[in-house]
């Protein structure tokens, strides 16, 4: 069971829930939990949510509302401080980045709420004072949809943004979907052996992973986490 101790509104559609989970033994950056909600009639639904916080911090989830979704509207709009729900985790040992003394640069590519596990990696990197070069390429629909907007400048990593639907006047970032040209301009070249993590909606992840392979990145160096949807 996790108890909500704090909620943070990140964007009009996204909220962070900070949790207190008795017996929590800590997590690694990139891991997720499975949240299970049970209705009064016993009906159960389970979904995965990435841990947003750095290892050592209390577990925090950042959830985006899908209007026709079963669980996310509840987690974004209805849960209040003190509410409790069932969860299990931390889960996963594949889509994780540990501060382990390796010097390989870190290249992170996020679409929408796919930024959540990548943020845990960047928060971890900052918290341990890692000097591994790190770059985040982050695609959102509009400036209002950018999650963790204020913190992105304070990560000590290079953050390149693209806004796919609407760009404010004077916008200095990209204004289109991530494509091979953008990946070529932003990513570390394959001969620098970057560790690459790609996360977001399934179609986004697929397009980015294919683009990176086309640029000569070894498929085995690219770790993906598909969130589902299209």
């Amino acid at each position, binding site marked *: 069971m996790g108890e909500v101790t704090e909620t943070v509104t990140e964007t009009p559609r996204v909220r962070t829930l900070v949790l207190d989970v008795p017996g929590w033994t800590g997590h690694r950056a990139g891991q997720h939990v499975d949240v299970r909600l049970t209705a009064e009639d016993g009906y159960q639904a389970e979904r995965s949510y990435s841990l947003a916080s750095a290892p050592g911090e209390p577990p925090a989830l950042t959830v985006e509302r899908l209007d026709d979704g079963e669980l996310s509207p509840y987690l974004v709009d209805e849960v209040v401080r003190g509410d409790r729900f069932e969860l299990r985790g931390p889960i996963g040992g*594949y889509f994780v980045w540990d501060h382990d003394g390796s010097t390989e640069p870190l290249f992170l590519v996020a679409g929408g709420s796919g930024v959540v596990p990548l943020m845990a990696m960047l928060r971890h990197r900052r918290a341990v004072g890692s000097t591994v070069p790190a770059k985040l390429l982050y695609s959102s629909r509009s400036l209002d949809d950018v999650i963790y907007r204020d913190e992105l400048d304070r990560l000590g990593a290079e953050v390149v943004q693209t806004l796919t639907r609407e760009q404010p006047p004077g916008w200095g970032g990209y204004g289109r979907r991530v494509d091979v040209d953008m990946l070529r301009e932003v990513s570390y070249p394959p001969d620098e052996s970057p560790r690459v993590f790609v996360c977001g909606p399934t179609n986004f992840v697929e397009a980015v992973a294919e683009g990176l392979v086309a640029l000569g990145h070894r498929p085995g160096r690219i770790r993906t986490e598909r*969130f589902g949807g299209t």
Partner: protein
Amino acid sequence: MIHLDGNSIGGLLSDVFGRDVTDASGRCRECGAENFVGALHVYRAAGVVVRCPSCSAVLMRFVAARDEVWVDLGGLLGSGLEPLRETRVHVMHGGEVVDGRAEP
């Protein structure tokens, strides 16, 4: 049909194997490709079907119902992945339950 990554079923997998296996590797019986379990392709319908990213062969199947789970690892070659020997984990092979309990 769209798929997720093996990583997304880490919770189910640790129910079956008793530990995190997403960074273990599995070899495909069809094409021999070796991939991290976290990188295999996961299709969710009534059950969970895990396919080889290289040739799409079915490597593992899971059906979870109530607190029990039915497991078929028939598409993996000598993976070293051993399901827990517990009454709630039923191991299947070629459509037959090999531990004596019927499929749900």
